[in-house]
């Protein structure tokens, strides 16, 4: 873990209090995003997002599956995050598992909505092929290659970028003669169905250090946090999911305040990401 001296700790706290953080940012400033798409060619969609020294890769693979009996009209999405030991030696062996599952669940909460799938950031009904029989299962795999704080926001941004980069093969379905037959699905070679990502939210994590909260905390800043609230917000400013982490309690009014700040920050973030996506796509085409 990060070992900090008392002086360093005070420096961090003091900087945040005066709205001038160690790396020169203001409290609500993100580090510059660096976005690449299509980094994993054999996936249906992929993206690499770097946020300072934080570096994550997200890949999306689509597989044919069967919808669950509760939601016959929706496809399924599963999110897995793996923290590579390259990011920190502590992740060696099973060391990264706890953080990996924490991140996976937080992301699922932010993107997939409740048990019914209602309110999901990803439109699950667009994944259905034949109701009750065949659907697409999306596997979203995140890999943390390098870690310098704010993994959740980085992963969420990478998922959004990867989704916008995802092409799903077009399928022709041959329904069997009787309704009990498993339909024949013929996957076409070329035609890709572009995934609609306009509703996909971003995640903004506000980290409370001392009396103030900051966005995009570095590893060192995170070590000083008392609690953090991650809010996922879509383009229309709707909140799609929320997670509070950290031990200290928060005053409800502070939480509401944090949410409205997050909402505000998120709109900036979305436009930054959109332009990065456009730039990355243009790059990839070349």
């Amino acid at each position, binding site marked *: 873990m990060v070992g900090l001296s008392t002086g360093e700790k005070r420096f961090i706290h003091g900087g945040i209090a005066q709205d001038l953080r160690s790396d020169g940012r203001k409290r609500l400033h993100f580090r510059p995003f660096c976005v690449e798409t299509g980094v994993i060619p054999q*996936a249906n969609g992929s993206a690499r997002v770097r946020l300072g020294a934080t570096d994550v890769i997200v890949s999306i693979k689509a597989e044919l599956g069967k919808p669950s009996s509760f939601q016959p009209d929706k496809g399924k999405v599963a999110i897995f995050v793996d923290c590579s030991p390259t990011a920190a030696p502590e992740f060696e062996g099973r060391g990264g598992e706890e953080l990996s599952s924490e991140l996976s669940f937080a992301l699922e909460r932010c993107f997939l909505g409740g048990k019914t799938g209602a309110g999901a950031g990803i439109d699950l009904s667009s994944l259905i092929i034949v109701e009750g029989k065949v659907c697409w299962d999306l596997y979203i795999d995140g890999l943390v290659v390098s870690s310098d704080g704010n993994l959740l926001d980085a992963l969420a941004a990478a998922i959004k970028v990867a989704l916008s980069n995802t092409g799903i093969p077009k399928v022709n379905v041959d329904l069997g003669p009787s309704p009990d037959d498993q339909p024949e699905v013929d996957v076409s070679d070329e035609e890709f169905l572009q995934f609609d990502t306009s509703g996909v939210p971003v995640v903004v994590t506000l980290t409370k250090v001392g009396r103030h909260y900051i966005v995009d905390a570095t590893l060192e800043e995170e070590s000083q946090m008392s609690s953090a609230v991650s809010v996922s917000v879509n383009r229309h400013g709707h909140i799609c999911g929320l997670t509070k982490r950290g031990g200290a309690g928060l005053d409800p009014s502070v939480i509401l305040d944090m949410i409205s700040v997050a909402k505000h920050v998120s709109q900036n973030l979305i436009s930054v990401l959109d332009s990065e996506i456009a730039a990355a796509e243009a790059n990839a085409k070349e």
Partner: protein
Amino acid sequence: MLQSKSFVKKTKQGRVVKVVREHYLRDDIYCGALSCKVCDTSAARLTSSASTILIVDTNVVLHQIDLLENPAIDDVVVLSVVLEEVRNKNLSVYNRVKALCTNSLRKFFVFSNEHHRDTYVKEMVGESPNDRNDRAIRVAARWYQSHLGGSTQVLLITNDRENKRKAIEEGLSAETVESYVKSLGQPNLLDLVSLPTSEDVGMEEVEDLRPSKRKVIYNEHKPMSEITSGLLRGIYHQGKLRVNRYNPFEAYVGSESIGDEIVIHGRANMNRAFDGDIVAVELLPQDQWHEEKSSIIADDEDDEEEDVHLVPSSADDAPRNTNLVQPAAASTASTSSRPAGRVVGIIKRNWHSYCGSLEPMPMPAGNGGIAHALFVSKDRRFPKIRIQTRQLENLLDKRIVVAVDSWDCLSRYPSGHYVRTIGKIGDRDTESEVLLIENDINSRPFSAQVLACLPHLPWTLSSEVLANPNRQDLRHLRVFSVDPPGCKDIDDALHCTSLPNGNFEVGVHIADVTNFVLPGTPLDEEASQRGTSVYLVERRIDMLPKPLTEDICSLRSDVERLAFSVIWEMTSEAEIISTRYTKSVIKSCAALSYVEAQARMDDSRLMDSLTTDLRNLNSLAKVMRHRRIERGALTLASAEVKFQIDTETHDPLDIGMYQIREANQMIEEFMLAANVSVAEKILKHFPLCSLLRRHPTPTKEMLEPLLRTAAAIGLDLDISSSKALADSLDHAVGDDPYFNKLIRILATRCMTQAVYFCSGDLSPSEYHHYGLAAPLYTHFTSPIRRYADVIVHRLLAAALGIAKLPPIFMDGLQLTSIADNLNYRHRNAQMASRASVELHTLIYFRKRPTDTEARIVKIKSNGFIVFIPKFGIEGPVYLMPRGDKGGDWVVDEVHQKVMRTGTNISYGILQTVRIHMEVVEPQPNRPKLELTLT
């Protein structure tokens, strides 16, 4: 030099997997023209002076391969995109074009356009793979044109109208196959051009074939997607179609999905499928499963009749037991027996080229000399093929080769094109070649690479060979060989020494072929492909080159030869006390013929040591033979005939039964024993990869015809085991001396042949050899003429630890495929031998009408089949003119008799009749042997 470019490919292996492969583009791929100033010309193949080079598209290669193989077509560039498509569509055409591209006499060059920096094209959005490939071909053609400059014309040959139009728009020269061939000014080449299908550019001068008669004759084949889903749902069944050799209107599809053979009756149900095609079959409703009567056959316009042929030596040679005279009761009973079906689609065609002749027809008037003719394949399993030719007059009396191009449902017959002429019908050389082609026998001389593997001649025993501790020097032994007269490829020899303890040491010495044929060499590959030597009446097609078969390996007398020996110590009761195996050096003291050996044994005045050895061996062999028969080995009989051939004209002078002597049986006995000993040894060491030979127990169904015949004459045969059958065959003694042999011949033809297999593929209980009543058997004793023995020699050497097992044995699949090939080659070699004998029989009787005695072996509704023991042939005798069914002859099924109503004239099974044999020519150039009652 390397440029990387990834492209995306998706496969569906149950799951959706996105596959990404690298694709490197290069700048070091050369154009292959000798005149090129820019490229490296060391591997160039195109003529420097060529004014025109041809670029062909995929369909041209696929359909016009016969034309491309003609030396008139040269300076051809085959693009890798074309090659790849051809490989995916038709492997046999691919192999042929590959052979063209490697043949140093031809100027075919392969250009890797897919990996060339300037000719690689990426699939555009919405472009089909076909369009993309056509575009790739045009891009490559354009590259050639600009690369070679104005001195050389680049001509794109395509029959695809769209592709041709685009090419011309893009400034390329493009022509159809027909117009290009015409421009060459060799009209006969046009016969080789395959007819275009409807989507392609039509040949202007060809009008629709008999438009008034065009009606739908066959059902449309189902589209592939429907077939796949039908197979999946179990509505359709997939399998290889096998047409009955003796009744081309009946076929069988072995289906794994229903675990049985599906019978297909009639051409309409076969729906344009050829023998060997992989088809999808739909079962007919069960009430239509009855075997269709033979009379159905006559409804079709081909009228089939049986020809005189050699007596079958096993069930594989004989017609399926379709009972032509079926009692009413039996036909209702058989309704449910065998599933019947019809072909709904063809999954993979097995079209190749066929040997035969044109159906006689008058010369058509006018029409620019183009005639539409019907080709009749010699192999009756294939339908007639419609071809067009400009040399009809020339071809009518010839054996020709024809390839099939298409068969649409409007046409009764498939269409094809002429490939080449073999020679005049009836001519011995022509017909011999036909039978070689028909049986897929490679009779070409051995290639230079193969001959390069031979040791230098004259071969002599070197001191290194003698110094090898694994090779025992047995030159001191009195070894001799016994073979048919004039045998040059002697692969076995024997010795027999009396031991002081009263026992005998008996050695079987087999030519050490594997000392010269090393695994993996071109020589070995060739031998493995050929599988066996083929014996025709007038010639022999060797598996190995002559210097090996007749000299270096042949265990001739008075020369030192390498051998692989099996040596037993036996008691005088022929009990084997010990067996050892060794590589050896021997020096045979005599190469005897069967007649000589027999004469020596019979001449009581001779007391020399060699004769004593022979007598000792003979008495041992008798004991062994007796014991084998006790065990239940069948003494089966086949009617082998022998020709006396005129040394000048190679025409047969005399024909007669081959006489089997005691000496033959003696040699046979020791060879069997050696094979069994070796089989035990190799299986012990290599339980999973030994090559063995098995003879499946005949099923009751297979023995049915024998039992029916026996029952008709009041003979009771017990078929519960081979022992029981052997005993009851022994007891089947009639009033005439030939009766027993006749029954044995009938029994033999009910059995299938023994086959090679890989021991890992079956369970030990299936290894059994029924005919020899041996639990294990293999072939070890004839490595000069059988490749199976070569493999067994290698296994034995490895089992003894004197050689390493070649890597091929580690690969079960490969070993299985070798065994399959050997079975296929053996079967073909036998078919060819039989066909050769039949051919010579015909030639013999051409000038010699003969009266002789024959035995009735099968009763038919309009006559009976007779067997002529003297000449080993059988054929039909008709009691009424053909086509005149019903008549006044009545068949008595129970007693196997045919009687003339109102008289007491009748013919029963096994009855002796006098017949007249004469060669007649009902149609010009179609001689056949006819049998009539005298």
